[in-house]
C-alpha cells in the first residue's frame, strides 16, 4: 500500500486539477461531469488504499519491503480455484440477455435463469472449496503429528481459524 495510494491519489489529484481547469476555461457540462466522476473514482480508490496503509500502521507488507525474503511472505496467500464451469454459465446467460436486447424479450427466459443459477453455483463452489481446504489442512496436520509427535509443523492453519482471526 506504500506506493499504491500515492499513484491512485496522484491520478485523482491530476483529474481534479484538469477538471477544474476545463470547467473554468470552457464552462462545458459533459466533459466536466466526466472528469469529475473520474476524479471521484480514483479518489475513492486512493482513499481506500490510504486507509489500508494507516490501518497497517504504515508497516510495509513483504511486497513493499525492498529487503524482504521469500520467508517473510510465508503463509496463506489466497484462494485459487483450479477450474470452474460457472463463469462460462454466467457468460452464456449474459450473452442470451444481450441478445434479448436485440431481438426480443423472450430471450430473457433463457438468459436470466442461466445467470441466476450460475451465480448460485459460483458462490456455493467457493464455500465447498473452503471446506475442502480445511479437510486437507486437517489431514496434513495429522500427518505432521504422526511424523513429529512432539510438536506441530507450524505452517498449516485451518482456514476457519484464519478467517476467525482476520
Amino acid at each position, binding site marked *: *500500500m506504500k*506506493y*499504491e495510494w500515492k*499513484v491512485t491519489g*496522484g*491520478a485523482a489529484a491530476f*483529474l481534479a486539477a*484538469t477538471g477544474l*481547469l*476545463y470547467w473554468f*476555461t*470552457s464552462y*462545458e457540462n*459533459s*466533459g466536466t461531469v*466526466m*472528469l469529475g466522476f*473520474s476524479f471521484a473514482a480514483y479518489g475513492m480508490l486512493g482513499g481506500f*488504499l490510504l486507509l489500508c496503509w494507516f490501518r497497517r500502521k504504515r508497516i510495509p507488507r*513483504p*511486497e*513493499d519491503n*525492498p529487503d*524482504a*525474503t*521469500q*520467508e*517473510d*511472505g*510465508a*503463509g*496463506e*496467500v*489466497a*484462494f*485459487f*480455484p*483450479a*477450474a*470452474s464451469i*460457472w*463463469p*462460462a454459465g*454466467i*457468460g*452464456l446467460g*449474459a*450473452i442470451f440477455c*444481450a*441478445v434479448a*436486447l*436485440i*431481438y426480443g424479450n423472450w430471450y430473457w427466459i433463457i438468459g436470466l435463469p442461466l445467470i441466476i443459477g450460475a451465480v448460485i453455483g459460483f458462490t456455493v*463452489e467457493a464455500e465447498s*472449496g*473452503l471446506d*475442502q*481446504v480445511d479437510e*486437507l489442512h486437517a489431514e496434513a496436520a495429522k500427518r505432521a503429528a504422526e511424523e513429529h509427535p512432539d510438536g506441530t509443523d507450524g*505452517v498449516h492453519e485451518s482456514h476457519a481459524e484464519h478467517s476467525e482471526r482476520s
Partner: protein
Amino acid sequence: MTILHERPAGAEPEFGPGRVEPLTEIIPGPRPHGWVRFITSTDHKQIGLNYMVTAFIGFLTAGLMAEGIRTQLAVPNNHFVTLDTFNQLFTMHGTIMLFVFLGPFAFGLANYIVPLQIGAPDMAFPRFNNLSYWLYLGGFLILLFSFMTNNGAADFGWFGYAPLTESIHSPGPGADMWIIGIALTGFSGIFTAVNTISTIFCLRAPGMVMFRMPIFCWNQMVTMFLVLLAFPVLTSAMAMLWLDRHLNTHFYDPNGGGQPILWQNLFWFFGHPEVYILALPYFGVVTEVIATMSKKPVFGYKGMVAATLSIGGLSMGVWAHHMYTTGAVLLPFFAGMSLLIAVPTGIKFFNWIGTMWRGTITLSTPMLFCIGFLMMFLLGGLTGVILAQPPLDFQLHNTYFVVAHFHYVMFGGSVFVVFASIYYWFPKYTGRMLDERLGKLSFVLLFVGFNLTFFPQHDLGLRGMSRRIATYPDNLGYNFLNLLSSIGAYITGIGVIPTLWNIFRSLRHGKIAGDNPWDGQTLEWATSSPPPEHNFEALPPIRSERPLWDANHPDMLTQAGH
C-alpha cells in the same frame, strides 16, 4: 476443485537447478483437458492464450475486410463491392480491429505475462477472469453474426456518430448488434482491468516493490487505470443509444431536443484514452524486448514510469481533439493538452534509444519488429502533432491524411509489437522457438507492405481525398497512389502468412527453447516453459528490477538508481 497457494515457510529457497522446496501446495482435484479445459480453466495462462488466439482470429477477419476495402479502392469507378457493403466493411474493420483485436490482445498479454513478471501464482480473481473471456467472445461473435442480418452489419463508421445511428437512419438489427457487441467487450475490459490492478496491488512476490516491477507491468497498470475510466463511459453511451433506438428517448436525437454533440463528447472521452489503451501495453513490450536484446537494464527506469503515468493522465484531457471541426469545443485547451503528450512520448523514445546505446544488441525477430515500431510510431506521432494543431486539422480533418496517421500509430505501432510479442514470448507459451528465418521474412514483407500501403495515403489526404468514400472519379489525380496503396495492402496480407505458418509448424517441430532462451532479465523466464500450474517452484531473491539477471550474472549485478 480448489487450490490453496502457500509460500514456503522454511529458509529462502536456493535459486538454481538444485532447488527442492515447493512454492505451492496444490490440492488434488479434476484437471480437465481439451475442450473442457478451454471452457472451465481459471488458469491465467490458459485464459491469456484464449484471449490472444481469439484476438488474432479477429485480426485476420478484420484484415480480410481491409483487403476488400483496398480492392474496391484500387482503381477508379470500381464495383468490387456495393456501396452499402463498403460502408459495412470499413465500419466492422475498425470495430473489430479496436474492440476485438488490439485491446483484447493486450488483455491476453496482461493475463499471461503480468502474474509471471511479478511472481504471482495467478490473477487475483481467477473465475472472474474466465467470465470476462466469455463476455469478450460473446461480443466478438455478435459483431461477426451481424453480417448475416437482413440489413447487414452496422454501416455508420466505427465511431457511430449520432444522429446517423438513430433507428430512423439505421434501421435493422445490425446496428443493435454493434451496440450490444461493443457493450459486452466493454464489460469484459472492465473485469480484466479490475483483475489486473488487484493482481498488481496485492499479489506481488516479497521484495517486488512497485519500483522494481518491470516497465511492462507499469504500463499494463496504467492501461487498466485508463480502461476503468474510459470503458464505463462507452458502455453507458451505448446504453443511451440503445434507449434512443428502442424506447424513444432523445439523448442524441435533435428532433426531440437531444444533442448529437453529446454522443461525440461521450464517445471520444472513451475514444482517446482507448488509443492509449491500445498503445501503452505495447510500449511496455517494446521496453522489455529492447532491454533483453541489448542485455542492459532499462535506461532511465523512473523516467519511463513517470512518462507512462503522465501519458495516462494527459490522455484523459484530450478527447475533443477529434472534434475540432464541430466548432463546439475549446480549441486552445485541447490543442495544448494534445501537444503536451508529445513530451512524455519523446522521453520514452529517448530512453529506448538510451537502452540500446552501447548495448550488446541481438538482431532477433522480436528486436527487428521493435526497431520497425520505433521508426513507424515516430512517423505516426509526428503526424499526430500536425493534426493536434487546429489550423492544420481544419484542412486535414476527415481526409486520408488522418487515415494514414492512425494506421501508422495502430499498425506500424501496436500491430508490429503484437508480432514482436508473439516471437518474444512464444517460447514461454509453448516451450519451442519460432523459426527466425520465417520471422524475418514476415518482418520484411510487413514492413515494406505497410509503408507502401499507408505512406501514399498522406499525399492522398493532402490532395483532398476524403476518407470513407467508396469510389472516386479518375480525373482527380488519386489513381496511381491508390493503386500503390492497394498493392501494399496485398503485400502486407502476404506478410502475415509466414508468421501463421511459423506458429503452426513450430508448435510441433520448433527448436526446444529451454527456460530462458533470450537470457531474459525478468521473472517470467525464471520458471519452466510453459510454466507449471501456479507458475513458480522457486523464486530468485528480488533485489532490483531485473532479479533473474542478477541471479544468472552475479558478476554484473544491477546497480541501484537505474
